[in-house]
């Protein structure tokens, strides 16, 4: 699904060069749920931004769903981002003056779907996150957990193959966080690849695979994806669906 080889990202000012990622390699396979952990400033958000085509990288190679993204222009990157990737942010990032329906509609507008197709997808996505009855509500009328569910519905509405989640439960209390996490696991079970950046070791433990980033490099990763135990939010060590290829780091 996503493969980076020897990727680097350097922020340059006239005074200083900062290496946010260096010799960064990772391979995320279709259907995986990968947690990216690491201390603040380690480069995990930079990785997520580059993986989500929100930022350019300085060197190395990067394939997204088999597409080499090097040298792509803005329009092509935006199209690929719109079609392949869904985003979930820590602070939900809903547009306050659009109602829930219109918020979920945003990525579908850029996809160019007709009104009937958009409505069908929005209905399905909001039903999936349990908020079909709140379509006409505005974000300010919902709880934090509900807002994050709307953000998940927005990410899902375009049927992306990859979901990028940046601290998705960071602004939620533990009860709401559990609900959101269960929803993400359910989405993953249905085949969507998820990459989640988190500080929280408990959340990371629920992912199939952990990637630990320090100083812009992958320092630690689980060799084998874990198999989710039915009825248990944790994972075990074997998942035939994921195949036998290990992590390229």
């Amino acid at each position, binding site marked *: 699904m996503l493969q980076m080889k020897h990727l680097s990202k350097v922020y340059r000012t006239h005074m200083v060069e900062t290496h946010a990622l260096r010799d960064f390699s990772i391979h995320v396979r279709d259907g995986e749920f990968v947690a990216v952990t690491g201390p603040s400033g380690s480069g995990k*958000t930079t990785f997520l931004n580059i993986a989500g085509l929100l*930022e350019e990288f300085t060197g190395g190679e990067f394939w997204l769903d088999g597409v080499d993204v090097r040298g792509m222009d803005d329009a092509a990157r*935006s199209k690929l981002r719109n079609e392949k990737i869904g985003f979930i942010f820590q602070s939900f990032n809903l547009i306050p003056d659009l109602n829930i329906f219109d918020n979920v509609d945003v990525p579908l507008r850029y996809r160019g779907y007709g009104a009937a197709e958009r409505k069908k997808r929005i209905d399905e996505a909001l039903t999936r996150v349990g908020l079909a009855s709140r379509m006409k509500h505005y974000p300010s009328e919902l709880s934090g957990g509900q807002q994050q569910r709307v953000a998940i519905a927005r990410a899902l509405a375009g049927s992306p193959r990859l979901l990028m989640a940046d601290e998705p439960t960071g602004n939620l209390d533990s009860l709401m966080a559990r609900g959101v996490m269960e929803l993400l696991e359910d989405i993953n079970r249905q085949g969507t690849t998820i990459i989640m950046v988190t500080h929280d070791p408990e959340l990371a433990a629920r992912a199939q695979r952990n990637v630990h980033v320090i100083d812009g490099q992958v320092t630690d990763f689980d060799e084998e994806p874990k198999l989710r135990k039915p009825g248990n939010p944790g994972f075990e060590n074997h998942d035939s669906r994921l195949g036998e290829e290990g992590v390229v780091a």
Partner: protein
Amino acid sequence: MIYYYLELGLRSLKRNPILTLLMVFGIGLGIAASMTTLTVMYLMGSDPIPWKSSRLHYVQLDNWSPDQPYYDDGRPPDQVTYRDAAALMEAGKADKQAAMFKMSLPVQPENPQIKPFQSLGRVTYADFFAMFEPPFAYGGAWNRDQDTSHARVIVLGKEMNEKLFGGQNSVGKTVRLDGNDYSVVGVIGNWNLRARYYDLTNGAFDDPDEFFIPYTTAIDLKHRGTGNNSCWKSPGDGWDAYLQSDCVWQQMWVELDSPARLAEYKSFLDNYVNEQKKLGRFQRPLNNRLLNVTEWMHDQKVVSRDVEVQTGLGFAFLAVCLVNTIGLLLAKFTRKAGEIGLRRALGASRRNVFTQYMIESGVVGLSGGVLGLALTGLGLVAVRSLYADYKSVAQLDWTMVATTIALSVVAALLAGLYPTWRACQVAPAAQLKTQ
């Protein structure tokens, strides 16, 4: 997508009503200031008879003093003498021709309820009506035979017909001017003359002529014109001496239906003046001119320098308003950096963002244009009440309505360019983390 962007633009304007009002008001005021002055300038200078302005020519002959030119830049006098006008009419070399002059005469109404009054009109030939095409409400023009027979006929202007006959069909009725009876042959209807272009030397923006009588009749009755009269030497005493003098006080127009006819007429004029030179007149070098309607209006500076300066100031004010709008749009779009970053993350390209915010700027421009149109209307009412001379030109026509709206939208799009460009530079990653 355009409809979606329009919807977003309107939504965004509603979200910050005070900021929106400031922008719309700023553009509206700038548009009103520039369009009020531009409308006056445009209507003053616009071609009053576009379908034939290139065929109507104003005749100028240089009979002025051998010692000094009429104008310092060498242009010939603005009017012609009676002698020359009469000679050119007699020759009849143009397809149509009309000598004319402005005339003020007392009107003595038959109806005792209406007091006698002084009226300004025009003395001319039958061809005047065919050349300048005033619309007739009743009847029509007199004919060339009536010119020849010195007929006592009159064409009334709309206002005079209102005054004397309550606006009814007065054809066949009699009007007494300065003790002489004239039979009404026609009544002019609504003649929307912005500038009275056929007589620019006697007030281009004065009220319309209230009556028209035949030239031959007026000369019989020894009616002197009441317009400008310029002489470079004393005309001598008496009516006949005045008619034979070199004083210029009449306007001479000819209609020439092709460039070949124009060349022929020019040649005729040169021959005429050369003949006159042999009689001791026209001592200056040959300096005849035949200007068409628009050339003549330009020559006479119908659009005055003052009006041009006012229009320039109006547009300078619009520029100031636009700078203000740029600042406000910049503030508005900067506040939306988070939303822009989010839209980029969700698949909007820079082009999508550019289009969305340019359309939002266009919506501001459209709203400013509508407000500007209303304010322009008020501005023109003010111009009409302050400057009576401009009342015929301080009016909005459809061209100016469309120009107002288009100028406003274009101005707002220009004002929106830089803020929109800045919006397109928003780095989505930075915004999404900081929201």
